[in-house]
């Protein structure tokens, strides 16, 4: 989905690009936002704000500094985190512990388009999955994770690197398997 034309249009505030970005990344960003705010209503509000910010600030996206999704993710995460600091959120906040927030069962609303890759992700050890969630989707620094979990900072850094590496391997295996199936089907 990510391509130069899409980026050109984003940078030139082409309105039609928002619909395409939403189709491509809406569910991924909503998943991240929902896991931060834990409320459908607030998550919808944050998702709307996210796409409006994306359109307003499209000219700031610099492809040489990272992928489009990483930029979108930063906007979505910061929007959701800002919302959690609002008075409205504080009033309605449930007393979830960090542990509950990380390990909350996620069975409803999973994007059926991604069920195949979900199985791939399920193969990743829970402790690595939680770590990725904390650092990349919830904005914890590695130091904050160490403090929160009592795990030494060096271990956090090693585990995070391993988690990403493992993820890459798992997705790589998934693609290789798909190609094998296609090859066998054609043969």
């Amino acid at each position: 989905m990510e391509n130069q034309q899409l980026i050109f249009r984003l940078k030139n505030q082409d309105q039609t690009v928002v619909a395409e970005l939403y189709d491509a990344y809406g569910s991924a960003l909503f998943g991240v936002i929902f896991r931060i705010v834990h409320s459908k209503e607030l998550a919808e509000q944050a998702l709307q704000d996210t796409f409006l910010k994306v359109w307003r600030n499209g000219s700031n996206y610099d492809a040489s500094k990272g992928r489009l999704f990483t930029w979108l993710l930063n906007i979505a995460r910061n929007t959701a985190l800002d919302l959690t600091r609002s008075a409205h959120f504080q009033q309605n906040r449930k007393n979830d512990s960090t542990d509950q927030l990380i390990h909350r069962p996620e069975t409803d609303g999973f994007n059926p388009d991604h069920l195949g890759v979900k199985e791939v992700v399920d193969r990743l050890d829970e402790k690595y999955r939680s770590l990725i969630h904390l650092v990349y989707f919830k904005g914890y620094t590695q130091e904050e994770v160490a403090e929160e979990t009592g795990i030494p900072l060096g271990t956090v850094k090693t585990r995070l690197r391993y988690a990403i590496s493992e993820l890459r391997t798992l997705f790589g295996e998934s693609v290789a398997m798909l190609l094998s199936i296609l090859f066998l089907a054609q043969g």
Partner: protein
Amino acid sequence: MDIQSFIQSGILEAYVAGHCTDAERAEVERLANLHPEVRAELNKIELALEQFAQAQGINPRPGIKDEILDKLEAISGTSQKQAPPPASAGGTTMLRLFQLLSLGAILACGYFLWSGQKNADELDKLRKENQTIAQKLTDCDTRQQNMQQMATLLRDTDTKAVTVTDGKNNHITVFHNPLRKECALDIAGVPARQDGKYLQAWAIVDGNPVDLGMVQMNAPAGWQPLRYFDRATAYAISEEDNPKGNAKPTVVIAMGNI
């Protein structure tokens, strides 16, 4: 500096998460520009996270998309009247220049009004000049962005050069990057078309030609970004009578497997 140690230090993971200090961020960006392996590693980390986020995605309520688009329409209707779209980060200098030129034009307009001299023609001329300069700056900006983006694509070690050829003298290059999910056509290799004929680009996906749009001989900086398809196995160029192209290629003049 030992680049492998740098890659394995965990700083790239922190950079992608946005947790680096300004100095660390500058260092990562400097080394990513110097060393393709650093750039490739960053891209792989980001891609893994993107796939992870997609896998963990949750579908929002169906009506949300329309609500966003409605809001956008309402906002853009007013904001476009109030202020021009912001210039890109890369065009800050150009924006300043444009602002100075605009200020100069406005002051000149004020002088003509104040002095009571015949100024309608002058004003009109200044406005047109202003518009021309603004257009040139926009073109420059687009060209600069295009060159930067192409440089990034070409620097990436995962980018593959696909030669689309007629088997004779014409060799057109399409740069294809499955990790970035990007591809671009190098206009420099495209042969001059005959009068009344137009060139159309195609990807071969699942054995079928998929329209990638008309070849734009005047694409900024000589590069034309093309729509990327994961399952594309080849690229092709066809010659068409219709300036807007056709649903199926009429005469394929060049082809190349990925």
